[in-house]
């Protein structure tokens, strides 16, 4: 029972992080119908930015509210800018081209980032060497928030632990999701986003600045990814250039389970995936985790081809 509860909590917590990444996928898919395979790698870039900021900031600011906020904000802003850049130069020129071409571009960017970050590159300026690219090995993520047990319930043998990062990521994720829902449904930008997602040509005719809306969506998604990445790094205490690929893939699976293009769907899908993985790891073996995650996805799609919350888009004939 305790074990079950513990797995439940762990699964939900992992799910919230997937959810933040999945939201980026879903939003971009919503407006562009593009599976942005580079999304996970943008997240990875965000984590490294956070790493650098924490490093420059110095150990004494770790754990303070201001310090943590600084790391998160800078990394999210940097990622937003980076997302904007990718959109502007790699996706926008291809918008009217077949969708596959943008997908290949996304894969190209993903390769360039995840392998590029594996290079060891440092420059020597004035006697000190500055690392430009981090190299292939994993690094310990600075302990801006030290993972510790926030709450323990039960005796030593049988206990349920809730971690501080679980609470933090849950709160941040919940706040961001509520904010996002408000943004999509209550603001002008959100209305524009929905219009673009419905049909961007018509939206352009109606005077909606499509380019700006799409760019904004990319920035938002990338910032969310950076935030998720940092939470992930705090949880797992390490960073590594290939981390984006795996988390990105999982988040994508989550978005599809929920019905890609649907915001609450992405959240539910991510939580479901997080739980599913956690129970597999807890009750069988972690080597089967990926297989079960994909198996779960396939089952969902077979029973409900449009995902849990996706709408059947009857094609107009």
């Amino acid at each position, binding site marked *: 029972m305790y074990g079950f509860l513990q797995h439940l909590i762990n699964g939900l917590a992992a799910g919230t992080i997937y959810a933040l990444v999945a939201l980026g996928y879903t939003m971009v898919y919503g407006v562009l119908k593009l599976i942005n395979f580079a999304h996970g790698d943008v997240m990875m870039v965000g984590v490294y930015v956070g790493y650098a900021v924490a490093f420059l900031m110095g150990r004494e600011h770790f754990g303070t509210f201001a310090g943590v906020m600084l790391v998160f904000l800078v990394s999210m802003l940097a990622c937003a800018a980076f997302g904007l850049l990718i959109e502007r130069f790699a996706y926008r020129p291809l918008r009217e081209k077949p969708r596959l071409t943008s997908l290949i571009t996304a894969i*190209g960017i993903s390769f360039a980032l995840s392998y590029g970050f594996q*290079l060891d590159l440092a420059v020597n300026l004035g006697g000190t060497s500055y690392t430009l690219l981090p190299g292939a090995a994993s690094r310990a993520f600075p302990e801006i928030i030290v993972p510790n047990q926030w709450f323990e319930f039960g005796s030593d043998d049988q206990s349920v632990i809730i971690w501080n990062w679980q609470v933090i990521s849950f709160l941040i994720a919940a706040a961001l999701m509520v904010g996002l829902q408000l943004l999509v449904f209550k603001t002008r930008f959100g209305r524009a986003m929905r219009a673009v997602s419905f049909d961007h040509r018509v939206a352009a005719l109606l005077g909606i600045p499509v380019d700006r809306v799409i760019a904004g969506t990319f920035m938002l998604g990338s910032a969310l990814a950076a935030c998720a990445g940092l939470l992930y790094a705090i949880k797992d205490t390490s960073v590594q250039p290939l981390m984006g690929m795996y988390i990105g893939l999982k988040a994508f699976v989550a978005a599809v389970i929920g019905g890609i293009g649907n915001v609450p769907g992405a959240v539910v899908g991510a939580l479901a995936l997080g739980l599913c993985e956690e129970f597999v790891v807890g009750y069988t073996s972690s080597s089967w985790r990926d*297989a079960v995650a994909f198996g779960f996805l396939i089952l969902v799609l*077979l029973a409900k081809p*449009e995902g849990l919350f996706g709408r059947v888009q009857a094609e107009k004939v």
Partner: protein
Amino acid sequence: MIRGAAPAILAAVGCIALQALLGEWAFFGYLASLVGVNVILAVSLNVINGMTGQFSIGHAGFMAVGAYTGGILSLATAQDRIGVLPEVVSDQLFLVGSLCAGGTVAALCGLIVGLPSLRLRGDYLAIVTLGFGEIIRVIVQNTQALGGALGLSGVPQRAGFGMVWFWVFLVVLMARRLAASPHGRSLWAIREDEVAAEAMGVDTTSYKVRAFVLSSFFAGVAGALFAHFVPIVNPGSFTFVKSMEIVVMIVAGGLGSTTGAFTAAVFLTLLPEGMRSLFTTLGGGDPSLAQKVDQVRMPIYGVLLVLIMLTRPQGIFGTHEAWDAVARWRKKARA
């Protein structure tokens, strides 16, 4: 029928001759085999992604199925031979048997995956095929009989590049003749407009499944060939990244163009090796520069992809075929 099979027979003779002539040149042979396997993968994936317009990104999974099936069969029969035949001939016959078995098992997997999932819309199909590829890999990794994480080693290295390129010829011939057959036309129709195709009496699901099965068959053969010239079959060779590389090849070549897929597969496979040579030359024979730059190959590959897409989004060939150009040219010359 005999006339129809004539090109394949001629190709077989040609490949044997080529093998005999160039067999000594080991590095060329190895590289040619690697290129050949990628060509088979690309041309076969093009049947489903290019001709039928269904987006599958789990091709490496079928390749793995073929590699392990073929590899295990050859391991089991490594000491057997057909008594009346010389050893080389008998080995090659066993090899063909293993290849066909690898292809068939992969095709069966294709059927099992394709039947339910080909009812799904584009992006969903993509993720299901990707999931399938990953599941296959995890299963292999956790099965000790298949060598687990270390992989299957000791598969007799029977496949020369002659054999590989014979299959390359077969897959290209298949793609070409398929494209010009009623089946091919139905596939094109599905790619162009599924609703209209269905309304014109094309059983879209059945055609898609069949295209998928055919595509998986050749992916399986490619995998089995791979197992017979790479000394170890390791689950790490069949990851999502491998699937992506194949997708990249067909898109770069021009979706739907068999010759495009062929060209891009050759080019992209040789690119890393070529870069290696280039850097060695540029470094004035200094190998340390080459090895430093060796690390930059993959990021460059990624950037190159983006550039190809930005400058020529329809791929190198678009949907054109080299042989169509030849036919047009000959027509013009005759007129």
